[in-house]
């Protein structure tokens, strides 16, 4: 088994707040991340795929395939955006690092054949990161 890990940087703004909660409750649960005007991060998504090498190309996926998929489906949707306002799923789901990582997983999981998606790690700051492995039970 061989795995390839690729890193993609993007920047986005978000607010951690539920629309059905008032400001006070959002501040209590999400702290300063609930500032309604939003704040931003330089995110890094680490995408891990595994599978069998193509014997002719010697690659897991054709060269540039994952870059193209991530650019179109993930970066095109998230980079430079205000997630709560510009990305439909985050009009309802709170754009926590956890929910963004799961959304990237859900976006990519059907797109990387013949490889398989193993994990999406989302680094939100130098101190905080999450990793989604496709189920709620870690491998």
């Amino acid at each position: 088994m061989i795995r390839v890990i690729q890193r993609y940087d993007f920047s986005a703004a978000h607010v951690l707040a539920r629309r059905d909660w008032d400001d006070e409750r959002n501040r209590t649960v999400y702290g300063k991340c609930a500032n309604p005007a939003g704040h931003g991060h330089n995110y890094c998504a680490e995408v891990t795929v595994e599978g069998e090498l193509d014997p002719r190309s010697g690659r897991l996926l054709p060269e540039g395939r994952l870059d193209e998929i991530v650019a179109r489906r993930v970066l095109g949707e998230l980079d430079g955006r205000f997630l709560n306002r510009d990305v439909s799923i985050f009009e309802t789901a709170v754009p926590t690092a956890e929910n963004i990582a799961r959304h990237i997983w859900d976006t990519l999981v059907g797109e990387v054949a013949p490889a398989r998606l193993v994990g999406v790690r989302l680094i939100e700051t130098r101190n905080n990161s999450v990793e989604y492995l496709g189920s709620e039970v870690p491998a």
Partner: protein
Amino acid sequence: MLLTRRMDFSASYRDASGATTGHNYELEVTISGRIDPETGMVVDLKELKELMEREIEARFDHRSLSEDTPYFRDRAPTPETFAELIFSLLDAALPKGSLHRIRLSPTRELTVEVTR
């Protein structure tokens, strides 16, 4: 879902030769859990940060592991024993079974990983 919070702290210790030395330690703490459907979070990061400050920073930051803590009276303060100690302190303070892994780097060239 795995969630990782990192922190730095500095500590000294007496090594096997009796010399006193110290490091800037880097610690990564990884929690495993389900996303709370209400908040979209696995754990409250502020609570995790405060727990790490209470359990690790307050005990070890700018302290001597050998002189200022009771943990290394009968064992050497190696990267491995220190990492095991940190795992057990955090494991006792966190909700049962939620600690997935710690990684302790006494220097940039060395990392010790402890899992369950």
